[in-house]
């Protein structure tokens, strides 16, 4: 139990620290590296909660896929000019105040509703299969239609990205 808590705080620190660095760095490549650190922290949190399949997906898809895409675009788009200019827009104080208000609200709700998060003891089903096997059972039996719709969405996104990034079709 203690080792769980230690790992939770380690990964939480990693996630939040990486997130803060992501939104404050001037150089876009540094931001992307910090975001990778943050995403790896989230992957560790998945592993702590016994979501092994999501842990693998997070590393392969986010760190291996999306972040490489980001780094390629940062190289394609010349960001040197933008790095010399102002990094935050003029309304940043208003934005910070609004976000702080929302944060205070969420914190208050957590403080007041802390006890109601216990949803009652759910009977723990005996684990008959691994995490990936259980996910596959549910995904392909109960969520088959959303799964197919997601594949169509990805197809549309691929076509859209190619159409927009290409000079002449």
């Amino acid at each position, binding site marked *: 139990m203690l080792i769980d*808590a230690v790992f939770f705080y380690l990964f939480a620190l990693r996630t939040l620290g990486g997130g803060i660095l992501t*939104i404050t760095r001037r150089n876009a490549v540094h931001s*992307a590296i910090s975001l990778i650190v943050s*995403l790896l922290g989230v992957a560790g949190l998945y592993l702590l909660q016994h979501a092994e399949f999501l842990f693998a997906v997070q590393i392969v898809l986010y760190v291996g896929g999306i972040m490489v895409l980001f780094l390629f675009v940062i190289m394609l788009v010349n960001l040197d000019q933008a790095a010399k200019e102002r990094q935050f827009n003029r309304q940043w104080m208003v934005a910070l105040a609004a976000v702080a208000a929302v944060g205070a609200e969420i914190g208050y709700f*957590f403080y007041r509703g802390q006890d109601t998060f216990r949803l009652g003891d759910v009977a723990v089903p005996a684990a008959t299969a691994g995490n990936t096997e259980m996910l596959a059972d549910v995904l392909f039996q*109960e969520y088959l239609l959303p799964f197919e719709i997601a594949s169509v969405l990805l197809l549309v996104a*691929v076509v859209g990205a190619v159409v927009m990034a290409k000079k002449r079709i």
Partner: protein
Amino acid sequence: MHPVTTVHYLALSAALLLIGTVGVLTRRSIVIILMSIELILNAVNINLVAFSRQAHAVHGQIFAIFVIVDAVAEAAVGLGILIALFRNKETVLADEIDLLKW
């Protein structure tokens, strides 16, 4: 030391959501704004997995998979738009793109 409960994960997720929102609202560079959106989607995923763990069911993780699929589609289309925009306007700063502003 208190044992780690669902509330801890929810608090962490809320903090990550707020960090991402600050990034979206205050940064000028579109690349950083897209990265902040990824942070927000990850905060949602932490919530879903935490509740999935608490309910001893994998349905929350299925939803997290769909959120990841959406994040991938969003990143691909968003970066495509960014490249097209940079080709036409030579800028990546969100507040200098005011074609629709009269």
